[in-house]
């Protein structure tokens, strides 16, 4: 039996095409991936991301514990600030990528839907000796993402948000707001490469908040968006997807996430291995590429060097709706990772020439 979010009824009522995403019955598209993608890039799109995991970590040692399990440095976070980080294992492999929000008396850790149980068990197991209280709030809270260049204007100009100061909420900060008669948290975070908000509210109020957000502005200003547009927008912004670009078999340096690893903050899980990996240099690297010939690269396709030797694989690939050409990300040997390097992607047993280009494909338009 697939798990469902508090918004399941809304999705089916809107005629969404539902799919199994990591054990969750989720909308992949409503009106169509392309229209939804354009809405996020040009106006605003609304995503149900309640399937993600939300853990509260409090107690005397909460900060010390999180410093020990994540790669980023959260010691400098003030109340209301957040940080992107990684959970790594002792070998430096990536268990998950997470967002840590600093709230007045706890930390809120948002994890990937597919890793909820794994992360929870990992954090439980590693909390021995720390005075921490962990709560899994995932089912009690819903989580929505309102994303796009018009997200701020539409939300902040709505009667419910006027004079709340939401428009002054800085990038990657979170605060308690009242909206549509509901109290909840709003963060200026997202996964699309656009400005926008992630909204946390009680699961019982999720439908009310969803309906109200969809009704913002003139009719059809906000389009409901499914996992298809979530994937295509994050792909263009070259944001890693767990299971594609990152996994326990990848380390942060080859995934170009070295900036999330703060080796100077003191010892943490994986720090010894990560120091060694960094010192030795990586053998392969994640690159972005375009195809020089007709074809579409997809995740899992093999990459061969020009002499025909298998040297890597595609992690995500698709025709980019915004750039209007097939693009991909994948792992290749470091020697082939510089801009302009060429290799072949094997598409249906046929080598198709590809060329390394700059990442991100789409420059994020965050409000900083």
């Amino acid at each position, binding site marked *: 039996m697939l798990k469902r979010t508090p918004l399941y009824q809304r999705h089916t009522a809107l*005629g969404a*095409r539902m799919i199994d995403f990591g054990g969750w019955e989720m909308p*992949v*598209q409503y009106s*169509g*991936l*392309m229209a939804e*993608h354009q809405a996020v890039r040009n106006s605003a799109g609304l995503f149900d991301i309640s399937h993600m995991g939300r853990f509260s970590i409090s107690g005397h040692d909460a900060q010390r514990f999180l410093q020990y399990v994540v790669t980023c440095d959260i010691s400098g976070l003030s109340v209301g600030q957040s940080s992107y980080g990684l959970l790594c294992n002792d070998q430096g492999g990536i268990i998950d990528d997470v967002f840590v929000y600093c709230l007045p008396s706890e930390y809120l850790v948002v994890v990937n839907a597919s890793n909820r149980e794994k992360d929870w068990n990992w954090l439980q197991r590693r909390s021995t000796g720390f005075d921490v209280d962990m709560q899994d709030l995932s089912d009690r809270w819903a989580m929505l993402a309102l994303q796009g260049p018009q997200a701020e204007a539409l939300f902040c100009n709505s009667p419910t948000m006027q004079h709340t100061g939401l428009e002054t909420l800085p990038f990657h900060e979170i605060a308690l707001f009242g909206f549509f008669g509901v109290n909840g948290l709003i963060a200026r975070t997202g996964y699309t490469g656009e400005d926008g908000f992630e909204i946390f509210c009680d699961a019982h109020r999720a439908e009310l908040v969803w309906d109200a957000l969809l009704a913002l502005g003139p009719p059809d200003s906000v389009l409901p968006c499914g996992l*298809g547009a979530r*994937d*295509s927008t994050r792909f263009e912004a070259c944001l890693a997807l767990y299971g594609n670009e990152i996994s326990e078999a990848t380390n942060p340096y080859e995934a170009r996430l070295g900036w999330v690893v703060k080796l100077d903050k003191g010892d943490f899980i994986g720090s010894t291995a990560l120091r060694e990996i960094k010192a030795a240099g990586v053998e392969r690297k994640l690159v972005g590429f375009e195809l020089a010939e*007709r*074809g*579409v690269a*997809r995740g899992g396709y093999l990459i061969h060097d020009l002499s025909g030797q298998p040297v890597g694989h595609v992690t995500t690939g*698709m*025709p980019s*709706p915004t750039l209007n050409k*097939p693009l991909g990300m994948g792992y290749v040997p470091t020697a082939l990772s510089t801009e302009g390097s060429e290799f072949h992607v094997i598409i*249906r047993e046929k080598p198709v020439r590809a060329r390394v280009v700059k990442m991100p494909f789409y420059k994020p338009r965050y409000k900083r």
Partner: protein
Amino acid sequence: MQYNLPADLQYVETDEWLRIEGDEAIVGITDYAQSALGDIVFLELPEVGDTFTAGQTYGVIESVKASSDLYAPVDCEVLAVNSPLIDNQEPINSDPYGDGWMLRIKITGGTDQLLDVAAYTKSVEERDH
């Protein structure tokens, strides 16, 4: 979900339709297939004169989210391809039984494996939950 599945066409499980005219047929993908794929952005079609056996891949169709093979519904020889589709795939989504047609073929084998609209509708309903 409701799909447009015309009663005067023949179908196969792999979501191709045929409009049989004597020993020739027009071939395309069904409304269900185009809906499942979403906006189509890439298409590869065979050359005139190519021959295929039933079930063999004759082309590739790609949307942003997925890639799918196109399967020959019967043993056939390609008489014509809808080449404007190579540059503009939009008709496959908007008009799958009209301007979105893909091949005109000469049928060179049996047609017993083809489904009528009732059998194909049942197949779609079983998969589309």
